[in-house]
């Protein structure tokens, strides 16, 4: 039994819909445990621990506004990226929760038992504020509570402690929040390597491991972690140097954005200026590197080109002339051996010709802007017209999104595995997959799986102008070096971009992805698409002329072009998000498509 304050459980009474705190007329009596004390007194602190809990609660709240927008309806969690209608959350019986609390449970035990209810119940029940679940809020409060441990300097409060005096508590809170600083850093972890061999892809695995190590090693500091992106909180006016050094020492560099503010600013205390995640999204980017020598005498590492190549590598069975000089990091990655078995097997299989690399990116800055846009839409939908600076994206909303983003990644992986089969799919990272293709047309199946899963889990992204997801699909031959694949995916600018290496690019938006994919369902003449693609190989201008030429209405090719035209409303400006080059790329893929197994 813990016999200590479990900060996560501070809002446990919300599950019952009862607001029977000390200030209420009929306060409830609970077990005599530190956790109950925290749950009961966190909104009216009676000692340093409950004050810390109160501040952690404020930081983890979905809104800095006073509760409820004046609405008392007990609304369930409304996820901004879903289209679910608003509904009421179910309640638990008060005595049941109190009985369980009497056993002084820890947080995992409580979450195990009431996980479903915690996710259904919104942290703030009022319509318009119900955008994060109670579970996310509780977890986040726990993180902030532990983060603030030893950071609240109550000695600065001059008067002797008088926890019974509400005015004194309010003054102490104000003093403490104005003196305690919090730095929030958005870190993007980058690697300098340009991997060519399958073994060199271990750098990606190392990157994922490093991010996971940071998330596990600093669980209370990392608020958000997805792919290469981290949101880290430091209870100081400076960022956490130890955390950043751990990443740079492993050979990675960081792109960092930071905002420092007082607790008063982060909690949106009345009268204080605001520090917000929006400021973070718009803050200038700084680069953080490990130590870089001014001069490197040859040889330089052939993979990363950022350190001396002191370690000669001649792999087993490799000829002497392919000897490479590597730095310690790159040598270490290669020594780990091939950790991607399918890729290694395909390399020795002469029937494998083409691969499709699918990478899903979630830039944190775009996510913040996007959630803000969706929040504004939601408030407008329920008839509220807040001023732009009132639409807040706070830590809890990001954490809530992360939970569903991980579900999306898992669903995409399962979908791809079902569609392509275990033997034809290699997961490199949760957001990076490689599928073996029999023809380029199968690449569209990857997008189809992705679109289906987004429609299931984050449908709002398919009909809003705000979408933070960036899908990159690159079709290349087996021997095409991965370093180039990565570069192409990094340089892609569209929401959804398909690149046929050495040929064309298809750029689209999530809003129009279904229209583009459904082109496959039209009875298009493959030779018409093939002809268009072949003409475009000579000149885009020629292909456009052929496309626009409607002087032979009975011509079969023209009929196909008209069909596409009508389907995409091509003539309407930017209606499909698909430019002419994209159309030709589609033609190149679709004209070569053959059905996959399991399809008629």
């Amino acid at each position, binding site marked *: 039994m813990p016999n200590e304050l479990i900060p996560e459980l501070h809002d446990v009474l919300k599950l019952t819909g009862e607001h029977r705190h000390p200030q209420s007329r009929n306060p409830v009596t609970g077990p005599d445990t530190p956790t109950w004390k925290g749950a009961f007194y966190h909104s009216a602190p009676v000692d340093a621990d409950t004050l810390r809990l109160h501040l952690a609660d404020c930081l983890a709240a979905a809104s800095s506004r006073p509760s409820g927008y004046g609405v008392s309806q007990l609304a369930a969690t409304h996820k901004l990226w879903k289209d679910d209608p608003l509904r009421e959350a179910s309640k638990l019986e008060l005595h049941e929760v109190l009985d369980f609390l009497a056993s002084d449970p820890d947080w995992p035990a409580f979450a195990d038992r009431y996980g479903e209810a915690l996710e259904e119940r919104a942290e703030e029940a009022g319509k318009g504020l119900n955008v994060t679940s109670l579970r996310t809020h509780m977890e986040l409060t726990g993180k902030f509570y532990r983060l603030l441990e030893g950071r609240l300097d109550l000695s600065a409060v001059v008067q002797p402690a008088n926890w019974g005096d509400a005015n004194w508590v309010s003054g102490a809170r104000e003093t403490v929040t104005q003196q305690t600083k919090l730095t929030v850093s958005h870190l993007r972890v980058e690697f300098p390597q340009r991997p060519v061999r399958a073994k060199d892809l271990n750098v990606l695995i190392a990157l994922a491991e490093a991010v996971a190590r940071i998330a596990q090693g600093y669980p209370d500091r990392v608020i958000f972690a997805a792919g290469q992106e981290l949101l880290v909180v430091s209870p100081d006016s400076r960022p956490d140097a130890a955390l950043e050094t751990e990443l740079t020492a492993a050979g990675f560099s960081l792109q960092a954005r930071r905002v420092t503010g007082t607790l008063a600013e982060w909690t949106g205390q009345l009268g204080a200026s605001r520090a917000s995640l929006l400021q973070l999204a718009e803050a200038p980017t*700084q680069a953080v590197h490990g130590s870089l020598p001014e001069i490197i005498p040859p040889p330089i590492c*052939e993979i990363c080109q950022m350190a001396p190549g002191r370690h000669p590598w001649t792999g087993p069975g490799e000829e002497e002339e392919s000897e490479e000089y590597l730095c310690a990091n790159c040598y270490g990655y290669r020594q780990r051996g091939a950790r991607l078995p399918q890729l290694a097997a395909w390399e020795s299989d002469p029937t494998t010709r083409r691969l499709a690399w699918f990478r899903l990116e979630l830039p944190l800055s775009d996510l913040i802007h996007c959630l803000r846009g969706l929040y504004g839409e939601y408030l407008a939908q329920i008839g509220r017209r807040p001023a732009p600076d009132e639409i807040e994206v706070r830590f809890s909303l990001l954490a809530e999104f992360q939970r569903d983003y991980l579900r999306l990644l898992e669903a995409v992986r399962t979908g791809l595995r079902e569609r392509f089969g275990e033997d034809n799919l290699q997961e490199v990272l949760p957001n990076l997959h490689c599928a073996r293709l029999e023809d380029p047309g199968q690449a569209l199946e990857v997008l189809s799986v992705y679109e289906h899963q987004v429609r299931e889990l984050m449908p709002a992204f398919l009909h809003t102008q705000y979408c933070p997801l960036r899908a990159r699909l690159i079709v290349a031959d087996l021997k095409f070096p991965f370093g180039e694949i990565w570069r192409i995916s990094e340089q892609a600018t569209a929401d959804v971009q398909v690149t046929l290496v050495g040929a064309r690019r298809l750029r689209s938006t999530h809003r129009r992805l279904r229209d583009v994919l459904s082109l496959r369902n039209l009875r298009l003449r493959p030779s018409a698409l093939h002809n268009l693609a072949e003409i475009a190989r000579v000149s885009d201008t020629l292909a456009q002329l052929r496309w626009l030429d409607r002087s032979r209405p009975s011509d079969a090719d023209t009929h196909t072009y008209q069909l596409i035209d009508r389907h995409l409303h091509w003539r309407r400006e930017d209606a499909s998000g698909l430019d002419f080059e994209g159309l030709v790329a589609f033609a190149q893929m679709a004209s070569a498509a053959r059905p996959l197994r399991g399809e008629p």
Partner: protein
Amino acid sequence: MSAAFLRYELRSDVICLGERLKAGWFRPCTDTVPYSQISGALRWAFGDADLHAAGHFCHYEVDYLVQGPRDRLRDISKLPLRVQVLRQALGSVYVLANEASRVLPEEFELQMGALRSKGLGQCSLRRLGEVPADVSGVLGTLNTRIPLARQEMFRLREVHMPIYGYLFEPTSPYTGNYVLSLFEGTRAVAPPFLLREFCHEDKRRDLRVDEIEMLRQRIEECDHVWQRCTYTPNFLDNVGAVLADHGFGVARTFLATREERRESDQAAGLKEVLRLLETCPRVQQNRGIGRLIIKSLEAMRPLRYKQARDQKRRAR
């Protein structure tokens, strides 16, 4: 000297710049013109060590060549080498204006980059103008690679977000070191010509590259092609087929035989089109392109002639 930099246009049919060989079989290529590459090539060509330059490409097509380097000593072929190259590359190079740069002519050629012995990297440079000495810096994204030690020389100030890498700097004809450098993507205050956001003039020059697009514009602008008639698909198909199969002379003869008939207006217009097509080297090399253009002629009809044609049709 009133100029700070001399501005040159750089053209190359096929070029591979920059990166080192990877895993013994792949050589990637950068789309900038790094300081080390262009300065080294200029020094080699003009024999003066005080030449300093950097630049970038604004238009190119990425392509891949496969080479099979031969080991003559052992009479074997090594692993095939895949080389990433830029084709039809057009870019700009900025040479620091100093005593050494006075020897540079208005136009010259030099070789630069990898696989020069295979014919890659032949570059033509043509002077376009000068960048005045009082050019001021603005915040933007660097579009080239410059060693940190040359930062001042290129007036790179206030580096906000550096992207580091290493460039080779020779210390003798046979030795050298890698020196810490700022790579493309660095956010810094620099003269606009070094920044990605300010290459408008380069982008305008891109238009000159697509010959077919230029040809289309010339046909569209030629009133003789459009003012007298509308073209029937059959007639266009026939003329296109004759051109593709037999060439310009026979196509003209074919049109001459039609001048006495109902199609005389169409024949006159198409003679004008043939004249324009003949001026385009790509059409001369591949008459199939000419056929496609003729077949799609009606799709090029300018709006004002389209309206006139539609009015005529309605009147009928």
